[in-house]
């Protein structure tokens, strides 16, 4: 077993980045951008388990991000449940919702599954927009900051470390799943569902399992996004554009490799910040960059770079 497996390399690299960034880049702005990369990286890793490993497309995964975000918003204000427990509540609700809708829609394949998940994301966004008495409607609601060990977590710094830590844990857990019996079963399903089925993999159960896991990942990301922002709106958490962004992060990064999802997230989060220089042409350039990434790097940014470095032909 050579020591530098992708798993050790990625986790080590991630720890270094999380530890060094505040030292190298002092200003809150960069910390804020990195926090967003960590939060959406968490959701992207979960989505990659579902899409990259098991090959099940989801065009509505921001629905779970929305559930996680609003759980942390609604629970403290309306139900008197403090922030931290609300995160667990959000994850529980997302898992339950994923379990309920998972059964029927995971029977679908390809574009049919895409439209079913698209529908789910739309439904969540609509609920959050219309149930204004709970969610504050389209203008959103403010999220009370949690109190941990007596201190109220408010500053960008604090949230930087929390989200960085959670991403590292999420990455380790994702690698654990990938190297376990479930991970192998999921990749088998992606390559040939028929063969996996006859060799003893319970297809429905495995797809269901990874759907729920990815929903919990997205929900945790939603909760952290809400807590670090302090204010959430239905569109910025559960909107269709957010689902598209998540999809782009995973696909641009590279399907089926955990490290690449984080890099894909970084690209998608940083692009709008870099493209502001184009003002009017921002959308045009963003669309172009997305197309070029897919054309030039079909396997995704990371696998292509790895292949170039190692120079071996797969």
């Amino acid at each position: 077993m050579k020591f530098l497996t992708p798993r050790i390399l990625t986790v080590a690299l991630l720890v270094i980045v999380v530890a060094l960034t505040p030292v190298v880049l002092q200003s809150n702005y960069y910390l804020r951008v990195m926090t967003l990369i960590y939060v959406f990286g968490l959701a992207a890793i979960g989505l990659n388990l579902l899409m990259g490993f098991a090959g099940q497309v989801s065009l509505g995964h921001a629905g779970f991000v929305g559930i996680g975000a609003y759980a942390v918003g609604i629970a403290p204000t309306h139900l008197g449940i403090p922030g931290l427990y609300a995160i667990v509540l959000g994850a529980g609700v997302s898992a339950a919702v994923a379990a309920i809708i998972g059964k029927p829609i995971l029977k679908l394949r390809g574009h049919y599954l895409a439209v079913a998940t698209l529908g789910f994301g739309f439904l969540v966004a609509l609920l959050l927009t219309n149930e204004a008495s709970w969610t504050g409607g389209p203008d959103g609601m403010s999220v009370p900051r949690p109190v941990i060990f007596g201190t109220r977590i408010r500053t960008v710094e604090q949230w930087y470390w929390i989200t960085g830590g959670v991403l590292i844990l999420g990455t380790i857990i994702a690698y654990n799943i990938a190297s376990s019996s479930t991970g192998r079963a999921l990749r088998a399903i992606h390559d040939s569902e028929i063969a996996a089925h006859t060799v003893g993999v319970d297809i429905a159960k495995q797809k269901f399992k990874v759907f729920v896991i990815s929903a919990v990942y997205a929900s945790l990301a939603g909760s952290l996004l809400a807590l670090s922002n302090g204010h959430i709106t239905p569109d910025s958490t559960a909107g269709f554009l957010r689902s598209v962004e998540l999809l782009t992060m995973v696909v641009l990064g590279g399907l089926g490799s955990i490290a690449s999802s984080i890099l894909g997230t970084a690209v998608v989060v940083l692009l709008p910040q870099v493209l502001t220089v184009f003002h009017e042409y921002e959308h045009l350039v963003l669309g172009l960059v997305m197309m070029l990434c897919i054309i030039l790097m079909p396997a995704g940014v990371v696998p292509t770079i790895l292949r170039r470095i190692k120079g071996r032909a797969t």
Partner: protein
Amino acid sequence: MLSDLVQYAASGVTVGAIYALIALGFTLIYNSTHVANFAQGDFAMLGAMTTVFVAAAGVPVVAAGILGILAAACAGLLLYRAAISFAKNSSVLGLIVLTIGAAIFLKGVAQIVFDKRFHSLPAWFGTEPIKVLDATIQPQSFVVLAGAAVIVFALVVFTKKTLIGKGILAISQNQLAATLVGINVTTIVTLAFVISAAIGGTAGILATPITLTSYDAGTLLSLKGFAAAMLGGMGSPMGAVIGGLVLGLVEAFGGGLISSAYKDAFAFLAILVVLALRPQGLVGSFVRERV
């Protein structure tokens, strides 16, 4: 109460016909490349906006319309030749992201070439509503319906009878075999994109008197068109029309009878129910995976 139901139906058919028109645009591209083109709504936007601006520059509306359809067709040509044909070996997901990127790109271009305001096109037969059991329907709805009917007929004839149409079906079954028997895949697939884009442009032009248009009108049209095409059964022209009309009617009756705030929710709930019962859509044929 009856006239209310008729009005709901009228509203449902009006909106449904627009979804059907957009859904039709998906068929040829899906049939030839199994790509669900999320820029289809932007072809419609491009067709409509070009017509608006060319007409504003003094060209008679009909000529402007033809130019609009051509503009959309060119966008379709470019999307295939300059983008999708290079992304041959990327996954279904990669192609979805590619078409979404194309949609954002087209929106960016429209934002600069045109402007960011709302525009409309004159209705073909004026705005005098037609009375049916004292429910009122805009004449333009019939124009949209007629357009959908003509396109469905043309598509069915095209795919069944003409050589190119059969070529597209052959390519969708097995691209390698199609090339072996001498079908020039690139030209045929390019043609599929051009025709699909032209259908998209026509849809935009026919629908704009009802829906109005702006540089970012494409996104929602793509979504609803995609949902309608899937509801009906991806790849079949009849499926697209049925899917579109059912979607429109579910929205209208759901919105009217239950709650207009959750209009879109009923549409997607209907899709979830239909796909749970018939995973290949209302009209789609069941594809057994051959071993």
